[in-house]
């Protein structure tokens, strides 16, 4: 006679344990591997998290184009682009560590919660070992935090707030793009040269992390050159008509208007300022001038003729004549029919830098990759000699001061490079007050 020892209660207990195990997110159950989402089956998956809908969708589309180009080059396709000019020789065109590179995409919608949800999905469901992208600092900071918790590397896309590698820096996060402090440090000497020392500036500032740090940086840099800051007015991000913010500027005694705005905000505030005829006025014996500290070609195009002659800064521009930039523009332009934006450039670089770090580290483990990126010095990616500083995971490189072109020859020819500001001029100490308040912490491999 056989006795069946399986009881109803035992079955329920066992089922609950198995069920809980299956339901648990993958990054909590990765003890079998040393880190989250270790590649298997000869394939490594990267997660490209960009705005595919919403106001920055065009920038997101350009980022996706660059990512696809980077994947093509990493897998040995196309002409190799900047892999041919990159100072590191670790990349061989056979994927990453012999694994073919695949990718999944997510839509950030330029909303922090949506961006976190899509990044989480790419990590948990699609097995992405690295997340990259973004066209907003708020989004980048939110996703960087998620990647730190999940134990994957985050290679930031277009994010310019000081906080990304300042008070919100994370060990798993790395930024190639420049920041607000660097914009101020690069722009102020040019503005002093062009407009003189005795100037009074009025700031309109987008009311969120990027706007605050951008404004703080530009104010500090211009005041160091002798300018006075008359006022700083915070404008809600959702503002579309800036007339009521622009109208009081002339009566304030200011002779410079600094627009700490990006995207649609920048287009609309600049359009309003030009419509009000500010640039035709003479105040304090000076011609009234407008400054847009962070330029994007895609956005400048939206402002049309209003950008002509207006100074700003940018991370990269397709007209640069170094070998890396030329190779990238040729590769991108041949594939898509138009030159890449700075957003496309930075995400292409980030993808190559991640792949290169994996090759040099011999692993996809975030801690190994992070170690390979920390203090890494390289050249040939379009910005001259560059270093990923170990202390805050910020890239240090030359910064471009640009001006809206007076006589453009094509629809892409919106900005002209006025000065390539050397890296030494935009560098700051890791404990600089504008970047204080956060800890890098320890890398999290997710295991």
């Amino acid at each position, binding site marked *: 006679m056989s006795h069946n020892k399986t009881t109803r209660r035992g079955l329920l207990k066992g089922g609950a344990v198995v069920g809980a195990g299956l339901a648990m997110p993958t990054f909590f159950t990765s003890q079998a591997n040393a880190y989250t989402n270790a590649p298997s089956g000869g394939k490594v998956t990267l997660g490209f998290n960009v705005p595919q*809908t*919403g*106001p*920055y*969708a*065009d920038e997101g589309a350009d980022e996706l184009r660059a990512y696809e180009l980077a994947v093509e080059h990493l897998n040995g396709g196309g002409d190799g682009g900047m892999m041919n000019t990159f100072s590191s020789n670790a990349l061989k065109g056979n994927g990453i560590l012999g694994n073919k590179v695949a990718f999944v995409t997510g839509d950030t919608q330029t909303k922090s919660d949506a961006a976190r949800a899509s990044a989480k999905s790419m990590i948990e469901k699609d097995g992405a070992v690295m997340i990259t992208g973004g066209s907003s600092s708020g989004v980048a900071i939110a996703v960087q935090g998620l990647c730190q918790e999940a134990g994957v590397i985050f290679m930031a896309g277009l994010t310019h707030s000081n906080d990304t590698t300042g008070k919100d820096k994370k060990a798993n996060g790395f930024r190639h793009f420049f920041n607000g402090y660097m914009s101020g440090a690069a722009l102020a000497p040019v503005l002093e040269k062009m407009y003189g020392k005795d100037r009074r500036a009025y700031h309109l500032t987008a009311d969120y992390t990027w706007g605050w740090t951008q404004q703080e940086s530009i104010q500090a840099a211009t005041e160091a050159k002798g300018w006075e800051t008359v*006022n700083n*007015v915070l404008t*809600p991000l*959702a503002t*579309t*008509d800036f*007339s*009521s*913010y622009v*109208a*009081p500027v*002339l*009566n304030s005694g200011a002779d410079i208007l600094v627009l700490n705005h990006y995207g*649609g905000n920048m*287009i*609309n505030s600049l*359009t*309003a300022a030009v*419509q*009000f*005829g500010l640039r*035709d*006025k003479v*105040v304090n014996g000076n011609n009234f001038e407008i400054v847009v500290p962070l330029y994007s070609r*895609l*956005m400048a*195009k*939206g*402002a*049309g*003729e*209003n950008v002509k002659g207006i100074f700003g800064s940018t991370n990269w521009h*397709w*007209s640069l004549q170094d070998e890396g930039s030329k190779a990238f*523009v*040729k590769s991108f*332009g*041949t594939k898509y029919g*138009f*030159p890449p934006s700075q957003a496309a450039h930075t995400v292409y670089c980030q993808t190559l830098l991640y792949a290169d770090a994996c090759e040099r580290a011999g692993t996809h483990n975030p801690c190994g990759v992070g170690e390979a990126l920390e203090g890494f010095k390289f050249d040939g990616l379009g910005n001259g000699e560059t270093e990923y500083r170990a202390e805050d995971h910020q890239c240090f490189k030359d910064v471009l001061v640009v001006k809206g072109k007076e006589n453009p*020859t*094509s629809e*892409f020819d919106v900005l002209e490079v006025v000065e390539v500001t050397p890296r030494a001029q935009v560098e700051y100490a890791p404990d600089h007050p504008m970047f204080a308040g956060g800890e890098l912490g320890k890398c999290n491999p997710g295991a």
Partner: protein
Amino acid sequence: MDQIILQLLNGLDKGSAYALIALGLTLIFGTLGVVNFAHGALFMIGAFCSVTLQKILMISQITIDESKTDFLGNALKVKTPYVEVWFGEATGQAIIDWSVPLAILFAIPIMLFIGWAMERGLIKHFYNRPHADQILVTFGLAIVLQEVIKQFYGANPIPTPAPDVFKGSFDFGTMLGFEANKIIYPFWRIVYFVFSVIIISGVFSFLRFTTFGMVVRAGMVDRETVGLLGINIDKRFTIMFGVAAAVAGLAGVMYTPINSPNYHMGMDFLVLSFVVVVVGGMGSLPGAILAGFMLGILESFASMNEIKSILPGIDQIIIYLVAIIILLTRPRGLMGKKGVMED
């Protein structure tokens, strides 16, 4: 004082846009009883009529200039708009320069057709459905329309400048005895205000002084009785839907030099315009105009630094605050009919 006058002027042009959109919105509610959340999308489509005409006028003949190169180092393709080839450089450039005003003529038939198609194709099926259903379906339609526009034109704003003659600003201050540059106001915004006054007057005159308008007004009061007189009131209401769409579209066309159009601009105005209609009184045309200008002016004053230093963030909530106060004290809105939307 100069700041007050300046913000008053700002409020007038903001109010013009609110009033024009709200006018169409309340016209549709007054005639058809439909709460049309796709009305902001009509404003946006009007703006893109302007963009489309500009693009049509910019269709170019391409010649190769061997002496110059493009970004890839190939011989430069030089584009010359066909209007310049056909009519000469000066005339062609003038036509392109005046593309926004010309877009009014371009937009009218398009907007009338879109309004007619929207009413006949979708909205008429929701006449006898609850307002919640109407809101859902028209809001869904608005999202579809904006995504279609984004698909064709992209997400970035597209610059559509005013004619050169209207660029720059007018110094009201010197006219009123203030110092120079104290009260300046862009020419195009003055044009926009005058344009909105003309359109609003036109719609009121049409409803007031034409037989068609009188029948429509009678139908708004008592649809059944007008129908019993043998008048096809439904057909007239369909035409009024087209007129309302055209008003919103024209408001969008003329707004393009103020803010470069983007696919989302309709949504930016929709909620505010809906608040304007509710404050003015659902179905009340004079109420929509009054509330449009009143809320536009209040919003402008609320964004003054002096006000914001006392009440931070007031510029964000002023319209909704006023709406709450008015609806609490007068649920049918400023000029709404007794019993309409009072519950």
